[in-house]
């Protein structure tokens, strides 16, 4: 991993710092938040930033800083789970599909195309309205929507790896499909998968927030970035930080993911890996 990180440029470092910062704050939120993020205090409603409340309070007197700090927990958790599952499943299937080819490839890719052709948000809304908006449902929904996309990307990369000589060598030795996919192909699309993970995660976190914003994600009074924006955006001029705080946090995380993905892509030469020129 060390070798992977070297030479990815300063933007990459900034990206990693932004991601780790957000993740760390989200993890530590229960301990470092000055207030309970859901505890309302009518006496302290709608205060501007002050020593007691750095970012002020919202209409129920809840501390905006505490809500912002805790607001990433849900989104990051869902993003982590959903992206990990989707990318893992997509990577495995993508490699398998690429390696096996033939009718299996045709059938899987046809379904993949069909799922991809339905707009993400519609597919997501359908799943959420079918099963409610619990966290695992959202995770499942994102996995359903994004796994096909990952399959497609990884399949593309794996197809070029598949034709490389070391895979041919393995075939000539008489290795079976499982070991070839796991030992030969998968490790060599890991660059693509890694970059894909970062990109995908950035979309997932935005998607989660959008869902929350539309009222399908986290439920009030839970602190959640998207939800906070939905709750407070009309009152942007009265409680600016209740909207800007979560958005700044969200944007910094997404920027972090983009920079990381750029850096990784640059360092790993992912585009070349795809075409097998590498």
């Amino acid at each position, binding site marked *: 991993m060390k070798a992977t990180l070297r030479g990815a440029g300063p933007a990459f470092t900034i990206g990693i710092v932004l991601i780790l910062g957000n993740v760390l704050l989200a993890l530590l939120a229960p301990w470092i938040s000055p207030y309970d993020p859901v505890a309302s205090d009518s006496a302290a409603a709608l205060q501007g930033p002050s020593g007691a409340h750095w970012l002020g309070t919202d209409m129920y007197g809840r501390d905006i800083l505490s809500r912002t700090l805790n607001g990433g927990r849900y989104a990051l958790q869902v993003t982590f789970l959903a992206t990990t599952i989707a990318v893992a499943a997509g990577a495995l299937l993508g490699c398998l599909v690429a390696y096996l080819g033939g009718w299996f490839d045709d059938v899987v*890719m*046809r*379904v993949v*195309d*069909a799922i*991809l*052709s*339905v*707009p*993400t*948000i*519609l597919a997501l*809304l*359908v*799943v959420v*309205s*079918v*099963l409610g908006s619990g966290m695992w449902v959202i995770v499942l929904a994102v996995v359903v929507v*994004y796994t096909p*996309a990952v399959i*497609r*990307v990884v*399949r*593309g*990369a*794996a*197809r070029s790896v598949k034709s490389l000589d070391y895979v041919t060598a393995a075939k000539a030795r008489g290795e079976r499909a499982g070991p070839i996919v796991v030992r030969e192909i998968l490790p060599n699309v890991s660059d*693509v998968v890694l*970059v*894909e993970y970062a*990109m*995908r995660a*950035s*979309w997932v976190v*935005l*998607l989660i*927030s*959008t869902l929350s*914003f*539309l009222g399908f994600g986290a439920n009030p009074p839970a602190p959640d970035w*998207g939800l906070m*924006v*939905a709750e407070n*955006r009309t009152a*942007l*001029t009265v409680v600016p930080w209740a*909207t800007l705080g979560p*958005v700044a946090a*969200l*944007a*910094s995380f*997404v*920027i972090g993911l*983009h920079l990381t*993905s750029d850096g990784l892509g640059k360092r790993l030469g*992912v*585009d070349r890996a*795809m*075409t097998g*020129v590498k």
Partner: protein
Amino acid sequence: MPLLILRRLGSAVLTIVLASLLVFLAIQALPGDVVQQILGRDATPEAVARMRSELGLDTPVFLRYVQWLFGALQGDFGTSLVSGEPVGPNLLLHFRNTLLIAVPTVIISVTLSIVLGVVAGLRRGKWADHSISLISLLAMSIPEFMVAALLVLAFAVGIPMFPAVVLDGPQASLAQLLPSIWLPVIVLSLAMAAYIIRMTRTSTIDVMTSEFITTAELKGLRRARVVMRHALPTALLPTLNVVAINIAWMLGGVVVVENIFNYPGMGNLMLEAVFNRDLPVIEAIAVVSAAIYVACNLLADLTAMALDPRQRFRPRARRGAGAQPGPKASPAISTVERSQP
């Protein structure tokens, strides 16, 4: 080549049908009682019972799908469970309104982003590149709902240049809607342009370092000719995919923007339909969206064929960009394979 196009058309239709089936099956699992949902909290049990029988919700799922499919083939998308009106005309109206946002968005963002992307690519590492990259990075990272909220605050509430929301219903005339489209167009253009800029920049850089551009330069051609005639057709190939995917994304993803601006487009219709569990409407929207997605990809394929003669001879040119060797410029796929919130 006509055979090639025909083949793609065939697989496109298959994709759309499959997509409609998937959506149909998914919606069948809805636990909430559609009728209860439609009639609302104050509905009497008698009214609920009557509506259930009227809608014939007891027919088996698969039969209903087949019936629907045959109807759809004849342009009949069924009747809305909620309004009792045919889905088709209403959807068409909303679709028209969304197009009113979508078309300017596509024109503006594609033009702007190709120009900016190429400039950034040519000026790689220079000031212009840095500013363009920074702006597109921000545009990608700040959620649309925030951008929309800020724009409304600034240009509708603060300085009343544009309407904050659309008050007219879906039947509004184009002239009535026209003043309202600009803020949505700006929001969508920003998000869309960001991705295209990045892609164009990357592929421009790729192409500009390729051997045939060096050859063209060393032939003593003017810079402008090298860029316009030699580099652009190839550099735009990967950009095409991104544009296609973005157009499709936009038609689905206008949900947020239409919601915020109360714009009577397909996105709002979609939200409303999902809220009401209006199965025929959701189904119709899904199919229309799938058709647009497939059509955009088809169009991108055809444009690619026009731009790059090599594309005309590959039987399975697009099945994941990885299968697209192209010139040296085959971009980072994850950027191409964008499907966004």
